[in-house]
């Protein structure tokens, strides 16, 4: 359902993506691991066209979408994103955060959007926080609202950019649980994370990325217990202590 071929990206003199290709099937959960600076975030942002790759192709449902005649906004409506720093709209309540997209982008009428929004907030366990402002919520709660906000657009797939890296330890569990529930419901997900427990439980495949390239790809057992590449072995060894 999502496929990228030979993505290249430079930021000035920095060669961040060096010919990256991957493919994700519908309903599959793909986890990307790797050291910081390996280009994972850039890769994610190329998929929903927040960043335009220098060369390469991005496919959504078989159609190439990084073309001049396709509006990036249309692509981003199909693919939701959850950020490391939550990025909730600080001036809006949780419910308003969730309904802003449907109302202003999809044109849903406010009443329907509100009802759907409440359902989504309930789904992530925050039904009672609908009228709270982000500043009044804990990190874990904010991130779950962010998940609900992305889901409100009814996306075909969801991208997660280190969703728990900015959280205090006691809140990580609740966010990972919400993500696992999403996976069980059949959502196509690409997750960049350091949470190996989540990766081994929920992911179907894991990609190891380093210095702009995909080094190795395999099932969780393969990557964690019998990595084929030296670099993968070193990285996994450090993480799985």
């Amino acid at each position: 359902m999502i496929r990228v071929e030979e993505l290249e990206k430079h930021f000035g003199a920095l060669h961040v993506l060096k010919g990256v290709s991957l493919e994700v099937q519908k309903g599959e959960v793909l986890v990307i691991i790797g050291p910081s600076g390996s280009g994972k975030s850039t890769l994610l942002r190329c998929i929903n066209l927040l960043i335009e790759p220098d060369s390469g192709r991005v496919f959504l449902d078989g159609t190439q979408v990084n073309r001049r005649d396709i509006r990036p906004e249309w692509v981003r409506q199909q693919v939701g994103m959850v950020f490391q720093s939550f990025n909730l709209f600080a001036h809006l309540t949780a419910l308003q955060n969730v309904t802003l997209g449907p109302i202003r982008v999809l044109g849903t009428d406010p009443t329907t959007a509100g009802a759907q929004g409440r359902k989504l907030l309930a789904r992530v366990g925050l039904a009672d926080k609908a009228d709270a402002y982000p500043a009044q919520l804990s990190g874990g709660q904010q991130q779950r609202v962010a998940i609900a906000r992305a889901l409100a657009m009814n996306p075909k797939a969801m991208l997660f950019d280190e969703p728990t890296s900015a959280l205090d330890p006691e809140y990580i569990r609740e966010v990972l649980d919400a993500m696992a529930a999403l996976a069980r419901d059949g959502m196509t997900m690409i997750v960049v994370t350091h949470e190996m427990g989540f990766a081994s439980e929920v992911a179907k495949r894991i990609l190891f990325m380093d210095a702009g390239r995909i080094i190795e790809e395999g099932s969780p057992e393969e990557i964690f217990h019998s990595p084929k590449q030296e670099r993968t072995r070193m990285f996994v060894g450090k993480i799985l202590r």
Partner: protein
Amino acid sequence: MPATFDEQRRSRVRIVDILLAILVTVGILAYILDVLALRWGLSTAYIGRSYPNYLKAAWISLYVTTIAYFIGMGIGFVLGWARSVRTLPLARVIAARRREAVAAADGGSPGAGLFLGTLLVYGIKYYVRRTADAYVAIIRGTPLFVQIVFVWSAVLVFYPRLDPLLQGLLAGVIALTANTGGYQSEIFRAGIQTVHSGQVEASRAIGLSRWGAMRYIVLPQAVRLVIPPLTNEYIGLLKASSLLAVVGSVPELTTFGRSEAFQTFHIFEAFALVVGIYLLITVPVSKVVEWIERRYRIPGLGIQASRTARV
């Protein structure tokens, strides 16, 4: 808006953009000056022979500004210090004093004298503090025009036989001093308070007295914080000194330019000279201050840059 577009495309557009920007800016400026010069007449001869007089007038502006600035700095520093100390609620002050007195008197209960003494000192501190606050509020809440005229009236009433130039000078310097004193007290207060929180506790934890903490920890940092706004304040005061035109007897730059304009009818030339000299002084200094601020900024530490030009 931050761009999230293709890097390569951006660098090509960027060069065109810069060239076009320079072209448009210079072009608009040249066009405006050309039209104005045509409409109002531009006598370069007048400019050529008169500009030394304008420069002399500018010197007078600078003299007046500098005198007022430094006297005002003394006032501002004292007031800023006084206003940066938090006034504790009365009950806590009394309780603290009581504890100290008990510790000193070794068990005996503190007498009524101590209580009244504390109350008196506190009362005086309170009213001094409130008056200082009011002084600054009034300076900031009323136009400089009014302040100048107020002082000028006082000077005229009390020293009616003084030379008009001296009257104007006296009134101008006093008013500008009072004005900048008020604004500088805000700068010093903000500087001291910004550093104060947390730093005093930390330094006392390592054994410094309250005065020692002030001297070795708070003040050095506060000085660094305070320099950019103080420099901006100097520029602001220079611009404010132009308001002495209402007095009319002090030949600073604006007064001089105005009288030249109306006497010689070279209005546009006078305007251009006055504006040109002000810009020559203020813009480079402001840019340097901006650059310094940006370069040496410590994220999270800084005084809100509020406009210091006030009238």
